[in-house]
């Protein structure tokens, strides 16, 4: 499989370190409003790995994703990035991840192009693709200059997904990214994730839907009892 774009990884990376886990979540415990959502939760991600989070509403999928990237507090346990606790390599870790929450994180008064420029400016990476190519690939071809408030919910979601293509971070944390997407959009996202994995990228995705990711193996983690 030839990846259509390279994930930003140091060129010195040799084959054997590719098998070392990049993201390690150990004995994680998170609580909300004095209620423990999950404890002793752990998983590892190696390049090319995909983790799918499943569980009922309120089982803590969003909290887990937010805890991994550092937005939600952790009661116990730790998150390590490339063998070092996240806190010690925070800048490197934040530069390596893209988090897409269930709220898309785009401005409705701006066009997809302006939104993309705003999120690109927040990163330290050079863009991997020109915006128009990214819009075309997420199915927004020709809509790059239409304000988001004139687009549908699914199109707004696609505009948010364009960030994944333009800012080539190795780790994607996607919270219910299929919300508002049609079947065509779902296939598009599955292709993005499969391509990302083929290029050595890692994805943690929370979704209720069965993902069709061709031959890419998926670790499933079920939250809640």
């Amino acid at each position, binding site marked *: 499989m030839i990846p259509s774009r390279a994930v930003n990884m140091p060129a010195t990376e040799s084959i054997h370190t590719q098998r070392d886990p990049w993201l390690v979540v150990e004995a994680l415990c998170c609580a909300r409003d004095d209620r423990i959502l999950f404890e002793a939760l752990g998983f590892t991600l190696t390049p090319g790995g995909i983790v799918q989070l499943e569980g009922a509403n309120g089982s803590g999928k969003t909290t887990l994703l937010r805890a991994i990237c550092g*937005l939600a507090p952790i009661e116990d346990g730790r998150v390590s990035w490339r063998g070092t606790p996240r806190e010690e390599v925070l800048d490197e870790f*934040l530069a390596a991840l893209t988090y897409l929450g269930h709220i898309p*994180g785009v401005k409705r008064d701006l066009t997809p192009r302006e939104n993309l420029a*705003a*999120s690109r*400016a927040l*990163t330290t990476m050079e863009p991997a693709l020109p915006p128009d190519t990214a819009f075309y690939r997420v199915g927004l071809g020709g809509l790059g200059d239409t304000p988001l408030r004139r687009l549908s919910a699914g199109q707004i979601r696609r505009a948010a997904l364009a960030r994944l293509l333009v800012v080539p971070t190795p780790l994607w944390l996607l919270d219910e990214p299929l919300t508002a997407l049609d079947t065509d959009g779902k296939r598009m996202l599955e292709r993005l994730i499969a391509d990302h994995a083929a290029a050595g990228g890692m994805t943690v995705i929370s979704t209720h839907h069965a993902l069709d990711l061709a031959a890419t193996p998926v670790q499933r983690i079920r939250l809640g009892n």
Partner: protein
Amino acid sequence: MGLGRAFRAMLGRDIRLAVRQRGELAQPLVFFAAVATLFPLALGPEPELLERIAPGIIWVAALLSALLPMDRMFRPDYEDGTLEQMLLSPHPASVLALAKVVAHWLVTGVPVILLAPLVALFLQLPMQALPALLATLALGTPLLSLIGAIGVALTVGLRSGGPLLALLLLPLYVPVLIFAAGAVDRAAAGLPIAGPIYLLAAMLVLALTLAPMAIAASLRISLS
């Protein structure tokens, strides 16, 4: 991309958004003019009285009109998820937050400074006090925005943060009000104003250095 570019991009994005929502842009300005004109209506138009109270009125009106749009500094970003994205940037959140405060001041504070001479004329403020009024507004309104941003960052996670925000901020605004209105008063009486002006400048420098860190820390608490 570099931090300087991130700062400029954040500043540019917020100004662009403000321009697209022009109606909101005009609100504090209209409020400033309306509050200032209420006083002559209530107290009578005697020039001697107005001359005496004009510095205080203009400053109270400026302070209230700064408070009105304050919540908009972070709340829309909190609601559409772009605030999360800002905190997840590898760039320091304090610098990005400062860009937002600067943008907010440019679109809410600067118009008030530009309108102030007109309102001063309205309220019979002696001409010799006009430079002092403009100087105190130029130093004081960014100070109001910086202090206000800490309060907004702390209350942005609450459903009805507005009234709480006003209660939180008004006491913190008192020193700015005292020195700024005092300086204009002294200028109207023909006295030197270097003292209060230097004090306001020192407070602004202090706020510029420390407030961004407090804002970033408050935002992290609000979002967790």
